[in-house]
């Protein structure tokens, strides 16, 4: 029984980090119809900025703040200087379908090599603001630590803030409108191009938090966020790739599912487990677990 609860709690923690990455992917997909494989790179660059601040000031939250700003700037920059140029040029021929996917992969490589050349490949750590030792109940030490609590709380706060932004503000309405029907939104006076760039910035900021939280109990290398990208994408597809609520639910399901595999089946099967989840969802409910019978907009 105790192991079951532990598994659930750990799964919830990893799942909530996946949720942020998955949200970032969904935000970009909704506005631009591109799965942004560079999201991991953007988050990594932002996390390295956070690492610099953290190692100089020693204040974790200041580092998170800077990472968010850096992530948002990088996100907006990618859309403004990169995606716009791409869509202007690569719009015909056999490569038009694959161009965005390949371009974001190239961007991921570019950011990775830039980070590698600047900071090197050594393992970097960002000190966690709270203890990473598990809580002790009676004589047993749980694998669930104050850091895990902190991660869940932080992610919850961000999710609530995003919900308010999207449901209660004009900007949120504009973002939703231009994702849902860009033509009509444009006619209604929304500057869709600018709104899209803002969407990329928000996605970048959210991804940066995912990177920071992932690094607080782990190492940071130019490759350390790749798995986060893969699992974030799987979670986004499980949630239907369109719905932000779906992305979060998908991530939590995935997080708990993978922790179950990790604890009860075998460590090496975690990755292929994620793949199996993805294939199963795509075969059984291709519109995601939150779909209400409406066809997928590809």
């Amino acid at each position, binding site marked *: 029984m105790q192991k079951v609860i532990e598994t659930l709690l750990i799964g919830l923690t990893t799942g909530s980090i996946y949720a942020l990455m998955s949200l970032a992917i969904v935000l970009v*997909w909704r506005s631009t119809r*591109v*799965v942004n*494989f560079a999201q991991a790179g953007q988050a990594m660059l932002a996390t390295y900025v956070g690492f610099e601040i953290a190692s100089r000031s020693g204040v974790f939250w200041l580092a998170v703040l800077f990472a968010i700003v850096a992530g948002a700037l990088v996100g907006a920059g990618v859309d403004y200087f*990169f995606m716009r*140029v*791409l869509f202007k*040029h*690569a719009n015909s*021929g*056999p*490569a*038009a*379908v*694959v*161009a965005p*996917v*390949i*371009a974001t*992969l*190239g*961007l*991921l*490589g*570019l950011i*990775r*090599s*830039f980070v*590698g*050349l600047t900071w*090197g*490949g050594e393992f970097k750590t960002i000190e966690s603001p709270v203890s990473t030792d598990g809580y002790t109940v009676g004589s047993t030490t749980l694998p669930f630590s104050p850091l895990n609590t902190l991660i869940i709380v932080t992610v919850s706060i961000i999710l609530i803030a995003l919900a308010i932004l999207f449901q209660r503000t004009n900007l949120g309405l504009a973002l939703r409108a231009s994702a849902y029907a860009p033509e009509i939104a444009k006619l209604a006076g929304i500057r869709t191009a600018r709104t899209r760039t803002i969407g990329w910035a928000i996605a970048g900021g959210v991804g940066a938090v995912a990177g920071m939280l992932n690094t607080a109990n782990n190492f940071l290398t*130019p490759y350390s966020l*790749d*798995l986060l990208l*893969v699992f974030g*994408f*799987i979670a986004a*597809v499980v949630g239907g*790739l369109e719905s932000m609520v779906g992305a979060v639910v998908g991530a939590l399901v995935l997080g708990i599912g993978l922790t179950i595999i990790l604890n009860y089946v*075998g*460590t*090496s*099967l*975690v*990755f*292929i*487990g*994620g*793949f199996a989840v*993805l*294939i199963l969802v*795509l*075969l059984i409910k*291709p519109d995601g677990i939150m779909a209400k019978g409406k066809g997928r907009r*590809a």
Partner: protein
Amino acid sequence: MESWRKVRDVVRKKIALFVFLGWVLLIVGDRVDELRVYQGAQIAMYTIALTSIVLLTGYSGQVSLGNGAMMAVGAYAAALTLNNLQTPIWFAFLMAILVSALFGALLGSAAARLAGPYLAGTTLALAVGLPAIANQFSFLGGEPGLIFDVGFPPERFGEEFTQYKWFFWIASCIALVAIFVTSNILQSRFGRTWRAIRGNSLAAELAGIHASRMKVLAFTMSSALAGLAGAVLAMNIGLVAPGAFTLALSFGLVTGAVLAGISSLPGVVLGGFILVVIPEIADVIANRLGDADKLNSYLPGLIVSVLLILSVIYTPNGPGENLRKHLRKKAAH
């Protein structure tokens, strides 16, 4: 009858061309040093792998980031066959093709339902997940992997004939055959059908094409080619280990294919060349600039990514396409 004769003529000419290419490779292989011969074998390996991407992405319009994983399937199939059954080498390569084709057919049935980014993401997950399986089952050898030894070159080639030259011969022989077969498939009914589906799958279906079945077929053939490339890679490095089939390999293959023109079969040789040469160039630059360690690890990636981004923006259909457009413009004037 008339058209059949024409086809036979074309195929004959093509066979002559490929025999000539093989002869050129043979001569070149004798003239250069060991390192270059080894790199030649690597180029041949990449060429096969890129052929699989051209078939899949360039013709049937499906993006796969999981070719590295398919190469792993082929490599393990070949190594297990060779080590456990003590078969001749060619049978190991044949098994690599068969097993990865089977695997590709299974995966393709799921993939045919997926469009663009879904497929890309799914195959990305595969590329991350599949090689790690080797750590779970002991008969796959875990992290250190399995030995894959095709043995010494036959004695009748003489004392001078080195191991690497033997690899080079096998690899380029396989590459030539693979490209020959693929180019015939792409010029056949299948190639036209795939292009039709890529252009507009709805219109293709209305014209009576079974689109999803054709997509599965493309995925199967592409996987078979990737598996074959994997077996050649395993031969070149002498072993099969999860560490050889990284995400970087899958990304590198996509990069090579885009750089050389995603739908151009002759381009694969250029692509393979680029993939082998770039680390070499980066190495030279790194040694010039000092601080070789950091530069060595990240400079190749930087060059590849910049090339990839520039080419996807400015020559998305490959350098050949731009050249042709340019020539057409000139001819019109």
